[in-house]
């Protein structure tokens, strides 16, 4: 077990499953024997606002919030949100980004523009970005809610614990509540894991 605290920032929009994803990461870290803290800065989360969740694990975690500029990994469910938060990464940190844009009403109303190429912009800041068509993959599997599991499969390459454990944590959640979705999530995790590796 490393002494250092690992910082993972999960970002997205209310309703996308940000909290579930961070919960899975936290539970996996717990199973690996780490001390874990997880914060949920949700605000009025059900209503389309920005959602961020901090997961920190290590031998001992003190402050629950990831200090600015010290995130090891950003898991972004939306490319513009990845751009919004990419400054939180430490030098050498990685951003795993779902490429499907989701414009808010203020953009629809013409009050703001959606950035032309958010992922390119992040890259131009010298940040290592992994682009992943997670929503597309999820839709291909027949349920856009699987985005979550696809993203988790993809980041399993960047975490020090075994992908098996994380997969188990996810599947257990469904075994209890929605057994019908176990196989689908298994497929989503595998798809994410496969694509997450290829750059």
């Amino acid at each position: 077990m490393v002494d250092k605290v690992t910082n993972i920032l999960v970002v997205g929009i209310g309703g996308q499953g940000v909290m579930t994803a961070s919960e899975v990461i936290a539970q996996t870290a717990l199973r690996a024997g780490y001390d874990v803290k997880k914060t949920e800065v949700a605000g009025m989360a059900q209503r389309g606002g920005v959602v961020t969740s901090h997961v920190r694990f290590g031998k001992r975690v003190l402050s629950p919030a990831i200090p600015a500029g010290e995130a090891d990994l950003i898991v972004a469910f939306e490319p513009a949100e990845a751009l919004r938060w990419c400054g939180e990464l430490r030098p050498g940190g990685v951003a795993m980004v779902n490429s499907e844009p989701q414009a808010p009403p203020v953009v629809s109303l013409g009050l703001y523009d959606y950035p032309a190429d958010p992922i390119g912009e992040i890259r131009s800041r010298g940040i290592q970005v992994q682009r992943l068509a997670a929503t597309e993959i999820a839709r291909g599997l027949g349920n856009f809610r699987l985005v979550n599991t696809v993203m988790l499969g993809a980041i399993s390459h960047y975490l020090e614990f075994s992908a098996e454990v994380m997969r188990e944590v996810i599947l257990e959640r469904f075994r209890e509540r929605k057994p019908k979705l176990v196989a689908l999530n298994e497929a989503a995790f595998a798809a994410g894991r496969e694509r997450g590796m290829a750059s």
Partner: protein
Amino acid sequence: MEQHSHLEPLFISGNAAIARGAWEAGCRVAAAYPGTPSTEIMEYTSRYKEIYSEWSMNEKVSLEVAIGASLAGSRAFCAMKHVGLNVASDALLSQTLIGVGGGLVIVVADDVGLSSSQNEQDSRFWGRFAHVPVLEPCDSQESFTMMQQAFELSEAFNTPVILRLTTRICHVKGIVRPQRDSYPTVTPLTGFVKDVKQKVMTPAHARFRIPWMFEREALLRDHSEVSELNRLVGGDDRRVGFIASGPAVLHIMESFPDAPILQLGLSYPPPLGKIRDFAATVATLVVVEEVEPLLEQEIKAAGIAVKGKELLPRQGELAPPVLRRALRSLMGEVAMPDVATASAPVVREQRVAPPVVSQAVLFPRPPTMCVACPHLGIYYCLAHIRNTTISGDIGCYTLGAGEPWNALDTCICMGASMGVALGLDKGRTAADKDKKIFAVIGDSTFMHMGMQGLLDITYNRGNVTVLLLDNRAVGMTGGQDNPASGRDIHGQPALQIDFRKLCEALGVRSERIVEVNPYELPTLFKALRDESKQPEPSVIITNQPCVLIDHYGPKPPLTVVDEKCTGCGNCLDVGCPAIAVVRRETVTKPNGQEKQLAFVTIDSQACTGCDLCPGTCAPDAIVPLQGVSRG
């Protein structure tokens, strides 16, 4: 204070830890009104079948229920957000003169950082005001243990106890080690003890309780000096020593691992002797407290040199980056454990963007109302009626102040829409002679504190058109049940209030009470226009549920026929997040003026077919999506 038990550790939030702590302490009665960030405390508590739990109508009632239960001999607590304690304070300031039967704990969650509140305030003030102790945990584990210690302290000193949380405790999950896996067998309780001089606060009785209260406070002051809740933690670098409470303790440990900290778990009354001793061991003493400089003033008044708000902000969380920045001058080299800046500042500048991408670069993403929210139609109409002043209230519908509606002019506190509207009516000047005054309030807020305001309007012959948005739930905090939903905290059938009868009883004439379906725009417009013309108060009640609760039944989605869409953009004024622009065009009208066109699409995965937006589309371009049905 680490305890050991054979039980599996739990990974839970501060809110869940409070509930667990209460259960393990044998608490019997719990009451709350939902409010971010405290809401989940009562949701979790209600899962323990041994505890009577309830959603109360407001925080004052919740405290009164807890007081009654305590006087009846049971351990009891109430939970609320910071602003709730303002409401409950009337009860608190007299209760403190009475004392307790069973332990009585007031759990209050300060929304430090304003995640979802109208202000940021420091509830520790109430401890000073009411002369009662204040406990401040720093994380889930401490929330759990302190909840139990709070009951013990309450009974030992015959006092209500305030347990103060902040958003960073309520909504942070951490490891908690439970001590028991069964509800404790309750030690024989005395039951209610009749004692008029103690429990009936008339001037004649209260006069004698005041000195008693001050004696109790003096005993608590002594206790604070020896309590294990006030203890030394942290490192051994004597240059700067910290006094801190709540999550700030962890933020300091993270920022300055070598600094010694006197952690005040029992922060009021402060252990001034302990603080003085600690001060003598360090070169400089700094107090880190969220939000107000309460300890700082008390420490200074005791003649101890301390630095505080001259260095640190009086607003928001004192998280590590804030501390490091603010204390850089003081901490010198140790102020730089921020690896990125300390080791390679130049490289960092080159490699990474500033921590926050500014709004100049990126749009903001404010919270929006839900797809198909029953409030959308109301605000669409209000935005299209001229010459109005709209007095708002606390709930999802506060978002009506924003784009695209801009149809809410004031928002103060729970229930204020009523009184403020009456004041706007009575105080109007010639400039506002013809203004129509509307008040917008939700069902839950109306029952919390709005009913009295409506009675004030009718009694004092005000002229206000009240929009009572009955969505049958406390929508803002996640759809908790209330008398509008007709279910109790466990989801069991309960009284369902009849708002029409209630408003009639509050003095609104029955002709002036109109029930409308908020998805029917023409009816809505007509009701708003007609009622606002009346020379007396009216109430327009909307009768469709919040889309997030199970009373709501989604319908098949709609779609936009591209060939028919003229790009007029009217449907965007509804503000439904399922409607998005696909293409913009600028055209020149015959009179030479330029006009912006916005062609739209409807996200069929999100649209629940509420049928509101077709009412705004003149060319009938919005139609049912063929071949899609929703179960």
